[in-house]
């Protein structure tokens, strides 16, 4: 099974049925899988904080949500993470493409990459980093952990992880 299919299968296994996405080149495959999934309602959002608002609503309506986004957008979501997701104690798995890591061709992406883990740490957001394809074996447990503790949880997925997909 491809890593994209495995990720979506773990989402479905954990009853995630509402997923919002803002695209990234690295995430194109998994977003396609989300779009094609019969078990998941896919709602693209225009900005990541808007997406987190949609996810908060879906959670209150009784569904398990998730957001798929790029790390460069972390800055625009910090207020929402603190004052909505964390303040009201809502679970939110965040599958994040970790641009600006090894293999990155675009220098500007590195500028947010160097702040990514520091910001997540500062906001006390449990963070996991997928570098090798086998790191995805932990996704099922990470999702269970997220809905157990009702917190936003970040899963950073770097270029090497996604490159593994093509090999």
């Amino acid at each position, binding site marked *: 099974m491809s890593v994209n299919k495995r990720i979506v299968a773990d989402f479905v296994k954990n009853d995630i*049925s*509402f997923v919002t996405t803002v695209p990234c080149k690295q995430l194109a495959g998994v977003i396609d899988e989300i779009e094609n999934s019969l078990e998941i*309602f896919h*709602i*693209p*959002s*225009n*900005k990541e*904080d*808007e*997406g*987190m*608002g*949609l*996810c*908060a*609503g*879906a*959670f*209150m*309506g*009784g*569904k398990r*949500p998730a957001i798929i986004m790029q790390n460069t957008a972390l800055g625009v979501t910090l*207020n*929402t993470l*603190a*004052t*909505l997701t964390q*303040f*009201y*104690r*809502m679970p939110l798995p965040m599958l994040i493409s970790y641009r600006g890591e090894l293999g990155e061709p675009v220098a500007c992406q590195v500028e947010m990459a160097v702040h990514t883990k520091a910001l997540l740490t500062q906001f006390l957001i449990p963070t996991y980093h997928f570098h090798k394809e086998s790191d995805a074996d932990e996704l099922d447990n990470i999702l269970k952990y997220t809905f157990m503790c009702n917190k936003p949880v970040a899963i950073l997925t770097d270029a090497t992880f996604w490159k593994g997909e093509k090999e």
Partner: protein
Amino acid sequence: MIRSEVLKSLLPVISDEFVVCNIGLPSQELHMMDDQPTNFYMLGTMGLSSSIGLGVALVQNQKVISIDGDGSVLTNFGTLPTIANNVADNFILLIIDNGSYGSTGDQPTYAGKKTSLSAVATACGCENVVECQAEDAAETLKAALASNKMTIIVCKCESGNIPVPVITMDPVSIRDRFMNELKVRNG
């Protein structure tokens, strides 16, 4: 009429409905006038009332009214195309447009100048967009609820505020009782 008077006129219509209420004075006014388990008060996160309300509406059957402000919609303009392209006929977005950032001292917004939020909503693809005056807000909302069609209402009113206490309820309590009420009514 100012926003608090519009909200007061809406109480007979919204008291028993699920309401996601905008940050700041709108939530404080609603909380003071008619606290209900069906109300979700936003204590922070300017701009996301419409996104939260749409999220709730899309995943269950109860009707949901997001009460928003012109300043907050301007903050999260991307919400209007998302609403237009993900129709939930149990969702109503009520934008109380007083042309100002009321909670921060009535600084003017662009919606009070050249920008028409109803024209923007229409241009974004929203199909049922109604602009009304403050005096007609309750009747317009009543009609929108009866229509069973997703509706965007832009209610024009005057700028101005009344003194209201802050909400001291715990956010988790606000969220929990709102969720429980939804669960009960959805059976």
